[in-house]
Structure formats: C-alpha cells, structure tokens
C-alpha cells in the first residue's frame, strides 16, 4: 500500500472521531505551546540580562566587599587601585541608595548614586545636556546632581530641569546636567536611565558614612584582565590581611555566572513544559489503544482481504503522528503568541528561538511515534480470526 493511502486512511480515522482527535491533540498543543512560550521567555530574559551586564562597560572589573567579612571599601582604595595597578584607566567608587527626590510638589523614590567625574567614561554613558560632575564637585562635596533621562522625565515632565533646585533626602541640590538615554537595565542591574548622580563625597556625607559600596575598575584595551584582577586582589589581601576580604569579578565572569543561572532557568522551564508534552503523548497512546480495540473488527476485515501487518501498522501509526505533528504546529503558533503575551504583560523581553521551536516540534513528532508505536503494533499483530470474531 502506498504512503498516500496510509495518510488518507489515517485522516479518515481521525475525521470519524473529530472531538476525540481534537482533545487528544490538545494535550500536544498545550505541551508544545508551553515549551515554546516558556523557553522563549527564558531565552529573552537571559539575553536582556546579558545585554545589561555588557552595557556596564567592557573591560570592566568590579570590586565589592565580601558579604560575610564585614570589611568596608573606602575612597582611598579606589585611588590605590588607580595608582598602583598597571593597565587601569580609572577606578570608580560607587555608593548607591534609594532616596526620596523632590521637585516642587513632586516626590519620587530614585536610585541615588554617589560617583566621580569618571563615570561617563567608565560606563560609556555620556551627558546629553548641561555637564557631568567635575573633579571639583567631588573634591568640595558640592550639592550638585545630574539626572538620568527617565528621572528627569518623571520629576520635571515638560519642564527644563537644568539649573533647578531639587531636594535629595531633604537637602537642596542644583541640577547641572541630564544623561543620554541608555535604554538598558531593569532586571538584575538598575535601570541606567532612572538614577540621580551626585558626588560620592556628598553622598557619604548625606548617608553619614566613609565607606563606598563598590568600585568599578576600567581596564585599558589589550590589558590582561586576569592579571589586573589578581593584582587588585593582592592589594586588598595586604590591606585587610585577609585573602577573601573582597570579591573581584571581571565582566566576563559576571556574564558566565549570569549565563549559568539563566541557562539553568531556561532548561528548568523547558523541562516542566516537556513533562506536559509527555503527558500529552500518554493521552495519544491511551486514545489509540481505545481506537484499536474499537476497530478490532475493522482490522480483522482488512486483514482478511489482504492487509499486511505493515499496512495496519502504518494506518494507526500515521494517525498518532498526524495528531502529534498537527498539535505541534498549532502549539508552536500558540506558544509564540503566548510568549508575546507574557512579554507584554510581564514586561519581560521574550525571544522565540528557531532552535527551540525545532526541538519542540521534533519532540512532538517523537512523542507521536513513541506513544503511537505500541497501539499500532498491537493492531498489526491481531490475529485476523480473533479480530473478526470480536463484537
């Protein structure tokens, strides 16, 4: 019997029980849609996070105090790194805190970042209008502020913020500049456009501290980042007499760590969805077994008039594969729509990857064959005499 006849027979069989075929297919549809949607969201999130970390600036090394050691970083540490480590362009101390920022009647909770004049160069984030903090601003602890573009928007709306007076934690600051829009951040690193930059010295005074939260070190192009990292570690080992007082990461290490976490997350989401696809496959097997039992007599007749085992096998196997492939295609469509919907509702970027779509489709096809083969073999092996006697 040629393949077209098998296909026609299988379609006839499915049409005879439309509702049942559809419900069986639904199991596969939901499974594939779940795989496609969840993996797309996972992939999208991981891409976004990677982009955010990359946007911190390339050739970047971060120094933060080890959480359990209780050591504080200070301004002098940044100066020491800048002075002593070869290949370091700038060491940027940061002190970050969410504070209330007011202008006239408006009041917003904003990330206030104490930093130095080196920030635009280290983080590749230039000023759009006005000017950034200067060396003097930092030296004299001036109460001046540069606004991120979104913060400016939130606080001032249509008004020009330059030269206005805002209050940060109740103290007056003059707005001297507005940053360009970077359009990144928000998931694991703060939104780059929703920050207020003030001199680090001023920030320390407001917060009543002499420590800094972290130090971003920008390394010259072509320098061995590993060497720089080791050198920085050594400086702190000597200073604190403790090799683990601070943690020093290169951007690459952060990216690798983030990639690990998001990769695991994606696989986890995909596996959970894959289980539902497996359940869909069991549904196929279940319904095909029922179908074989119901059609035992038909199988007997077909065998009596000359159907071979492989003809019967093909008829039933093609039925289950049609269910799983059609379900797979519909599931991919729904999954793409679903990932788009999740992306919009949850404001998480989603990225449908062709590879994963193919994997989901291939898995659906495999499910159809795997769960269809047993019922089909059962049908093919029926003894024609017994089958003809079946009521």
């Amino acid at each position, binding site marked *: *019997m*040629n393949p077209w*006849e098998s296909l026609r027979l299988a379609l*006839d069989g499915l049409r*005879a029980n439309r509702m049942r075929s559809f419900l069986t297919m639904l199991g596969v549809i939901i499974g594939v849609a779940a795989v496609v949607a969840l993996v797309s969201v996972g992939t999208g999130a991981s891409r976004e996070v990677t982009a955010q970390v990359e946007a911190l600036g390339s050739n970047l090394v971060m120094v933060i105090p080890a959480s359990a050691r209780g050591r504080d970083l200070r301004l002098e540490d940044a100066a020491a790194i800048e002075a002593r480590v070869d290949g370091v362009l700038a060491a940027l101390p940061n002190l970050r805190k969410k504070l209330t920022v007011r202008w006239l009647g408006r009041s917003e909770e904003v990330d206030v970042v104490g930093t130095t004049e080196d920030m635009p160069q280290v983080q590749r984030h230039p000023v759009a209008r006005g000017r950034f903090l200067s060396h003097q601003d930092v030296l004299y602890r001036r109460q001046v502020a540069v606004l991120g573009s979104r913060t400016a928007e939130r606080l001032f709306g249509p008004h020009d913020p330059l030269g206005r007076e805002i209050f940060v934690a109740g103290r007056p600051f003059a707005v001297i500049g507005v940053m360009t829009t970077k359009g990144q951040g928000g998931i694991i690193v703060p939104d780059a456009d929703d920050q207020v930059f003030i001199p680090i010295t001023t920030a320390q005074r407001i917060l009543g501290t002499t420590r800094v939260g972290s130090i971003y070190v920008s390394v010259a192009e072509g320098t061995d980042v590993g060497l720089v990292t080791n050198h920085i570690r050594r400086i702190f080992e000597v200073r604190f007499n403790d090799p683990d007082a601070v943690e020093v990461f290169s951007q690459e290490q952060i990216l690798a760590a983030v990639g690990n976490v998001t990769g695991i997350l994606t696989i986890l989401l995909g596996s959970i969805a894959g289980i539902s696809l497996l359940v869909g496959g069991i549904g196929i097997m279940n319904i095909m077994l029922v179908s074989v039992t119901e059609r035992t*007599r*038909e199988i*007997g*007749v*077909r*065998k*009596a*008039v*000359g*159907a*071979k*085992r492989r*003809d019967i096998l093909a008829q039933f196997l093609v039925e289950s594969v049609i269910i799983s492939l059609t379900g797979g295609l519909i599931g991919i469509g729904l999954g793409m729509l679903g990932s788009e919907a999740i992306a919009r509702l949850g404001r998480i970027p989603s990225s449908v990857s062709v590879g994963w779509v193919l994997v989901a489709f291939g898995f659906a096809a495999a499910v159809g064959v795997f769960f269809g083969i047993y019922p089909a073999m059962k049908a093919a092996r029926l003894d*024609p*005499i017994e089958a*003809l006697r079946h009521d």
Partner: protein
Amino acid sequence: MSPLIELQGVTKVYGEGRLSVAALQELDLRVWEGELVSIMGPSGSGKSTLMNILGCLDRPTRGVYLLEGRDVSALTDNELAEIRNRKVGFVFQTFNLLPRATAAENVELPLIYRGVPRAERRRMAREALEIVNMGHRLTHRPAQLSGGEQQRVAIARALAGNPRIILADEPTGNLDSRTGEEIMGLFQRVNEELGVTVVLVTHDPRRARQTRRIIRMLDGRLVGDDPVPDEEFVRAAPGGPDGKAGEPAG
C-alpha cells in the same frame, strides 16, 4: 489437471498438551476449479476451522495444503496476506462491511492493498457492484442498505479482485429466507457465469441442495462427500435481475 485445492492429512490442534483440542483430524479434501460446494455439520465439527485454513487466515498444525498446486501450509504471514488478497474472496455471515465507507469504497478495499491505482479501483469496484445488481448503490453506506443489499456488497468485495475461490461462512444465516434465496441465486450465477469456485458453509439442507456437492463434517473429520444429482439440485429463485434486492432484513 490438478485440483484448485488439495488438503492432505490436514490436522489443526488448538492449545497444547492435555488441554489441546483437535479441531481438524487428518483431513483429506480436493476441490476442483469451478465447483460449487457446501459444507454441513453441527457446530464444533470444524467447519469454520476448515474455512479459515482454506482462506489462508490460519495454518494447519500438520499436513499439507496445496492451493493451485503450491504448498501454502508454511508460508509467512505476509505471504498468506498476499494470497488472501489475490486468490481468495471472503463472505461472512455478518457481512463485515466497514460502516464508515460507502459501498464502492468497501468493494475497493482488497484492491487498495493490492496497490491498484485509484481510478482503476473505482472502475473495478463499479463493475463488481454491477455484477451483484448493486450498481445503483455505489455511494450508500452499509447502514443505508438492507441486509440482503449489504451481503451483495460483500459478495462484490469478494469478487472485485478476481479471486480463484470465494469462501462463504453461512452467508444466508442472518437473512430472511427470501433474501437468502436471492443470495444463493447470486452464488449460483457467479459460479456458472464467471466460473468462480465457491465453497460455502450452511446449516440448511435446502441451501446445501442449491450447491453441486455436499461435504459433511463431524468432530473434525469428513463424514460425507456427495455430489448433488441434477434431479435434486435446487435452482435458487432468481436474484432480482431488475436490481431489486428483496426485503430489508430486520
């Protein structure tokens, strides 16, 4: 000329050891091309087992079955399927038509498995249905047909592949006597006009006398094998050459 069918010492045993039952014991039988044969016997006498073996649905436990001179007792399942497809046409007591298929599609069934192209199949099915006077019912489904009409379609299905032999297991058992008469008339006509060998099982002595040879079975053995003399042969009432297929059964 060698017989169309020759059984030599055919034995069929079901089960194993002490629980085994011999359905056929050392059976010898010859059927010649063009014969119209009836098999009679009480239930359990082995008629159905014999029909299954003749139809290559089953293999003898011992003995030799020669079909057209070829030993088919030890063929593989696929080879037996091939023989059923090309040499044998089955007619069942319960018709066994596929309920979702039209009359024409039912008749096409053996031709599908023979790989006959679709258009050719359609033509052959229509011809077969015309032979049984069902040419006007091509697109009817079994549920839309009377019992007699369904059996005609089943006979057309058996005929469609130009088999060497038609095997009918109580073909009139589910029909009222008038319709049964018409079906017997159809077998007689197929046998005489097309020269197809027909072997049928019946319980009814009148039906048996509508064939040319009566084989009697008891406990898995042949206990009688007699030709029906011309003066005893009953010609069945003509099977409605006008295309009427008798009363709907039930």
